[in-house]
């Protein structure tokens, strides 16, 4: 029987089993390669998340760990805490101003650059440059620019500029005014990140075929209509991506606030991440700090997880 097997059949079987062995070898190699980072990630990310979650349910205040069970008491106290309530409101305002600012300014810059202006490369670099700067540097510079000065000692920064060009009416306390403080900080953040949004939109705009616009023009659409009905809907995935990236930055923002204003007058520029640092490392309230960290994680997850599911689904469809 074996003799009757033709040579070509043997060759095919051999090749197949070799191929199979190769796949299983690849597999082993792949697992071996990924295992260390998987172990590291599960320890340094997920285990620590679990640890933080556990600490947030204990009574650990002071430097010596105290694992007495507190249940959800820390969370209840946290949400009753006036500072934390202010922080949550600040986060909402900050996110709204920051996202709107970035998207509007970024889109307008991209549209302008898309007109094939001379020296486009230069403009692109200029608008993108802020992104290369650290938030700490942005914070220090904007802290100086938005420093209001006083009537007695003279105005400085942007207030001085407004005064000189005859727009003194627009002078403001900026971040020293509790009513608008957090918006002033969001302004600095938007300055930093709108170049990034511009780059995203510009790539998107360049990806839209000229024929579509031509066709719309032939149908008698005005330029504004073309943007409203054709281009902006086509850019929707880019907008979504930008919202996700900017949104989680705005939820987690710490360095900008720390460098620019700190908590501000009456916590007018305080954010959850800053509160977390303050209460944990200055106040030794490890339980409360952990609870804030968990709330932050949940907030970011609420934003990111649907997006991850969405992208995973669309990848599966491809």
């Amino acid at each position, binding site marked *: 029987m074996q003799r009757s097997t033709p040579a070509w059949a043997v060759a095919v079987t051999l090749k197949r089993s070799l191929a199979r062995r190769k796949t299983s070898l690849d597999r082993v190699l792949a697992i071996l390669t990924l295992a260390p980072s998987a172990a590291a990630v599960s320890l340094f990310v997920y285990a620590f998340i679990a640890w933080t979650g556990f600490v947030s349910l204990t009574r650990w205040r002071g430097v010596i760990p105290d694992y007495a069970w507190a249940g959800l008491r820390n969370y209840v106290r946290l949400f009753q805490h*006036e500072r934390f309530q202010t922080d949550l409101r600040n986060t909402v305002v900050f996110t709204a101003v920051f996202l709107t600012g970035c998207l509007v300014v970024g889109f307008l810059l991209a549209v302008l650059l898309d007109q094939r202006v001379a020296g486009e490369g230069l403009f692109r670099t200029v608008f993108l440059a802020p992104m290369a700067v650290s938030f700490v540097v942005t914070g220090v510079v904007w802290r100086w620019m938005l420093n209001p000065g006083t009537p007695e000692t003279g105005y400085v920064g942007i207030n001085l500029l407004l005064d000189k060009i005859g727009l003194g009416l627009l002078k403001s306390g900026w971040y020293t005014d509790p009513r608008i403080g957090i918006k002033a900080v969001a302004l600095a953040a938007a300055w930093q990140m709108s170049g990034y949004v511009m780059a995203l939109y510009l790539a998107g705009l360049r990806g839209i075929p000229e024929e579509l616009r031509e066709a719309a023009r032939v149908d008698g659409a005005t330029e504004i209509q073309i943007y409203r009905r054709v281009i902006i809907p086509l850019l929707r995935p880019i907008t979504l991506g930008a919202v996700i990236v900017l949104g989680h930055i705005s939820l987690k923002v710490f360095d900008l606030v720390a460098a620019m204003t*700190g*908590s501000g007058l*009456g916590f007018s520029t305080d954010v959850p991440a800053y509160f977390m640092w303050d209460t944990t490392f*200055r106040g030794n309230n490890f339980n409360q700090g952990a609870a804030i960290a968990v709330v932050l994680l949940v907030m970011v997850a609420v934003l990111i997880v649907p997006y991850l599911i969405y992208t995973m689904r669309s990848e599966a469809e491809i």
Partner: protein
Amino acid sequence: MARMRAVRIVFSVLAVALLVSASASAGTTQFRKLEVFSWWTAGGEAEALTALFDEYYKLHPDVWIVNATVAGGAGSVAKAVLVSRMLGGDPPDTFQVHAGRELIDTWVVAGKMEPLDDLFKAEGWDKVMPGGILDIISYNGHYWSVPVNIHRSNVLWYNKKVFQTYGLKPPRTFDEFFQVADALKARGIIPFVVGSKDGWELGHVFEDVLAGVLGPEAYRGLWTGKTRWTDPRVTQALQTFKRMMTYANSDHSALTWDGAAAYLMEGKGGMLIMGDWTDGWFTAKGFKDYGWAPTPGTAGTFVALSDTFGLPKGIKNRDTVMDWLRLLGSKRGQEAFNPKKGSICARTDCDRSLFNEYLRSAMDDWQKDEIVPSVIHGAAASESWATAFKDTVALFAARGDVAAAQRALQQACEDAGVCR
């Protein structure tokens, strides 16, 4: 100076090399080690620390000092590093800690320190240091750290030239404060300069107002549970503080305390309430036209804070640390350190001629005044209580709700387990 430092670095490197080779070849070490942990990294404070090291080297040339400083205002970063080292079982040989609740509640109650009674007795420090400071480094009848300096937090600084020009006198009471403030305001000068950017400065002003309204005895009681936070005098202090803030510069949340002090220096501002490191700052800036007085209502009261070093349990170089602590508490060590740091000795027998005019006045007051602990600077309350206090005052400054602030202060006291 720089040259000396370079020489020292070279010697340290040689010392390490020698240490390594000695222990490698003969198995014996000639050099002993001492690691000193602090957050003194800037200007005068770093120089003061170096001066202490110099004295130590003179006495113990066979010790190799590791200067483990961690930069960061008021020790906010250093404290986090310290916590992780202490909890990780790797304590520094000795570390800087504010005398009072910061020392006691954070480290002594946790059982991380060794008592120093024998040292205090052998050196006779319980006779040359005033009772006020001995009280705040004591717990359960034992001494827990060695104070190297004293800062005063209740000082009202004023611009002498401005005051002379308008014929004003430094205010002794709150009524006088408001009169002077009105007079300054009428001349277009910021009456009361404040910087509140770092979050603790308003709490600093308010603790001085509390001391001024309540007096030393009742003020002290606030932190021990003897005075109730619901007391009408606390209400009065909140109202006074609120009124004082109406005279403050409108941009105070954009400034740190030294930014506010610069307004005073330029003659654009009249009065500032800040601790006596301001004296060191003015001196460093070459500004001489400043005057000082106790903050309103606190004549005869000295709101104090003190930097101290202690002996953590489980360290390797116990004998070199004891030598270090002995130097810190000695006349020689304190005289080397304090003129540079801009503070006064914790002892009462230092040579007055080494100090400037302000510091000499502080030395006099230190000997005769009632000493009460500062809360913002770690002496009166645990870190978590002090943080809650600071937060409450910061919020009050913006909202101005007296009743809510008083409730929050009471709540913070209850959370700390002192009030019921």
